[in-house]
């Protein structure tokens, strides 16, 4: 057995978990790191280990966080009366760039029964707990403008129906079928200012 070859093969195999990296690119990256940048590669290995072990989800908003509560949820300058519900951390970042200054709840997906993703997987019980805290005045449903995103928004609006909250849905402005992370900030800003009441 050739240990050298098997370690390289393993590295190439592992690199393929990176998005957009196929067998060829993985090979190229592996040889580059071994030949030219061992310190950088060791630092990457360390950061990956630390991040994968140290980053979990914020107990309040479900976004990635290394502390029990994320930086945003702990920030006293945010408007705690506004809660914006988004599908993913990338969507949250997009809304943040559009100038939103409230708090978030990150679903980490949308309703998709055939993939086994229902209310439990999307943390609806955490959302109810968060709303039980009583700080929220308005829930802004900023799920994607897709059929699954609409169904998710409708489900949540029904779930919080009997709370004394305003429930709004971001306006169209985001193209139908568009996913927030790919929409430019000004479009998203229009969508936020034109949000409508669902009840």
């Amino acid at each position, binding site marked *: 057995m050739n240990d050298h070859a098997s370690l390289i093969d393993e590295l190439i195999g592992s690199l393929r978990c990176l998005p957009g990296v196929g067998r060829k690119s993985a090979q190229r990256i592996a040889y580059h790191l071994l030949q030219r940048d061992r310190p950088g590669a060791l630092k990457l290995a360390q950061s990956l280990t630390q991040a994968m072990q140290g980053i979990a989800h914020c107990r309040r908003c479900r976004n990635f966080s290394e502390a029990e509560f994320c930086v945003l949820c702990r920030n006293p300058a945010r408007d705690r009366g506004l809660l914006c519900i988004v599908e993913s951390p990338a969507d949250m970042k997009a809304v943040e760039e559009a100038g939103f200054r409230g708090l978030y709840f990150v679903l980490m997906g949308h309703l998709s*029964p055939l993939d086994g993703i229902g209310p439990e997987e999307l943390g609806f019980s955490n959302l109810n707990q968060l709303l039980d805290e009583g700080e929220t005045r308005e829930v802004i449903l900023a799920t994607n403008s897709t059929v699954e995103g609409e169904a998710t928004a409708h489900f949540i609006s029904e779930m919080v129906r009997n709370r004394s909250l305003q429930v709004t849905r971001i306006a169209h402005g985001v193209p139908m079928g568009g996913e927030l992370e790919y929409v430019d900030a000004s479009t998203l800003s229009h969508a936020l200012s034109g949000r409508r009441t669902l009840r």
Partner: protein
Amino acid sequence: MHPCYILHQRDYRETSKLLEVFSSEHGRVSLVARGVKRKSFRNGHLLQINRKLDLAWSGRGDLYTLINLESGYPALEIQGRRLLSAFYVNELLMRLLHRHDAHPQLFRIYEHTLHALQSGENEERVLRCFEIELLKELGYGPVLDHAIDTGRKVEPGRDYHFQINHGPMEAAKPGKDSIPVAGNTLLALARGELESPEAIRQTKRIMRGIIAQHLGGKPLASRKMYQEYLHLAGSE
């Protein structure tokens, strides 16, 4: 290009999607849609479930590659709770259709069902009518016109006991699960014209029993979600 509806889709890798489509000419087909989530990909946003599209694909085996898409049809806007019913209809097709079995008639029924869900027709009736048409189309349609124990024609004024695997009976069979059903309901179901709330309710139990027989023990995820919806929406 083939007229199609997407029954289900999910993200695949970074920029692609896996699609389960129902095509009028080719039945259920699985497609990989490469690069459609890229900003530079035109029309990627059209790939939505419950939306009629013209799709073209190539390849062999069970998974084809999408090569072209166009939308020459108006988009459906199914709203609110009815979206959950659309998930249910889609799941039934996903679970009960075999790949590449063409069902042009069922395609028309499916299309009609989506439009009925959009237009605000009685949701329960729309779903029950879809179920019976689906079962008939797949060759699982139950006996509705005569009692299987006596062979006599079903009479409107009479009550029957429906045995899931067999059909309506005049006499209750002891020790066997059967569903009470009015002759009127059976005749309405045979005509595909469910009107009374009672007929719709009785049909629901019969359809549920027959469909369960063909699902191989695995429950429908969309039904579970609908029940969670009713529970969450009703509580607090």
